[in-house]
């Protein structure tokens, strides 16, 4: 739980993921398309991965991955990200994190 919040606040844009999870990959691709590079934390490559998973489920992520944090706050999973994007409310949230290449 602490690790989750720490990682979320240290990096503006975080996706908790698993390397085998294709929906996580989908969300990552979407963010790239929108011009941002989120910090991706692969739970299957983290020895504390199971604990993080439990923490995410407790926080309300039923999936539990992908779990997206923007500005230290839990946004949700793929559903929430897609809904935000279609309603036009995702881009404003991402503005501070645009990478100017």
């Amino acid at each position, binding site marked *: 739980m602490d690790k989750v919040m720490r990682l979320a606040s240290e990096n503006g844009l975080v996706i908790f993921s698993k390397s*085998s*999870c*294709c*929906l996580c*990959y*989908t*969300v990552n*691709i*979407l963010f790239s*398309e*929108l011009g941002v590079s989120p910090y991706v934390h692969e739970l299957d490559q983290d020895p504390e991965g199971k604990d993080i998973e439990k923490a995410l489920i407790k926080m309300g992520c039923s999936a539990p991955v992908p779990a997206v944090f923007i500005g230290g706050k839990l946004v949700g999973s*793929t*559903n929430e990200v*897609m*809904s935000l*994007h*279609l*309603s*036009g409310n*995702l881009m404003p949230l991402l503005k501070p994190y645009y990478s100017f290449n």
Partner: protein
Amino acid sequence: MNSTSTQFAVQTNMIYETIHQVGMWGDFKVDGFLNTSSPLILDVETQLGNQSEDSSHGTVGGSLKYDQEGSKPVDKVLRRLAQNREAARKSRLRKKAYVQQLESSKIRLLQLEQELERARQQNQYASGGIDVSQLGYTGNLKPGIATFEMEYGNWVEEQNKQTTEMRKALQSHIGEIELRILVDCSMRHYFDLFRIKANAGKTDVFYLMSGVWKTAAERFFLWIGGFRPSELLKILTPHFGQLTDQQQAEAGNLQQSCQQAEDALSLGMEKLQQILAETIATGQLGEGNYLPQINAAMEKLEALVRFVNQADHLRQETLQQMSRILTTRQAARGLLALGEYFERLRALSSQWSSSPCESA
């Protein structure tokens, strides 16, 4: 024994053949339906077609043909109108019979499938019995899917009714409040579809993905188990009526966001295909023992269910956002256009399936 299963399999096969060949509404005898052979249907169609042509040259029309110049066009028009009315009436009757036949065949099909499954479990098909896989989905049909087929059939029927109602409503210039009710009803009906699809996905996601439950022309446009929302937006946009600058901007953004989400989902699906292929192919391809790979692959299939759900979620969100951007009347026009678009696709499928085959 083997013969019983064969008998069931053959009967089921005949039902599939007959249903496939019906295509457009056809006239057929009720009691003889299950044993009827295909040519009957096409023959009657041709007969009815010829009749309307013949009557213009038959005895009734004959005497009018040589009337004075002035009244000749009017009589012809009246006669043509009567023929049209008659043809429409016949068409409605045929359709009614067709729908009734489909209903009873569905029930019969369900029964046959259940008996087939029972028989299959008692027999060894591997020892040279009939190849059940020829029946397409019948052999492996999961119980929840028969339910889905019935529910989806009802859904389409209801959809057509609503489209007709919307058409009448817009032509009659009804009030805003009544129109809003129709619009909300129509939206809820689409959400119903996503709900029954979600249930089907839990049972058999491959079935949903294959699009076998849709008509042929609809299948051509299949994207992750359904329609592609951004494409539909493109098709529907000219039909909303006049949009304000604000609305146009919002609609444009919606289309772009939708496109981006679709692209991301498509790439995710490709990754899933890749992972599944790798999982199946691990170890020695050729060693003959592959149970562990199959089991590992089964786990990956759960991801496919999530993808189909995600795609449906995207479709639902697109509908909701569009409804938010548009006025009631614009939304009504959009829903009418959407309903008729799918009606046309289904009509294309019907026409295609009943058109004469090119020689093999």
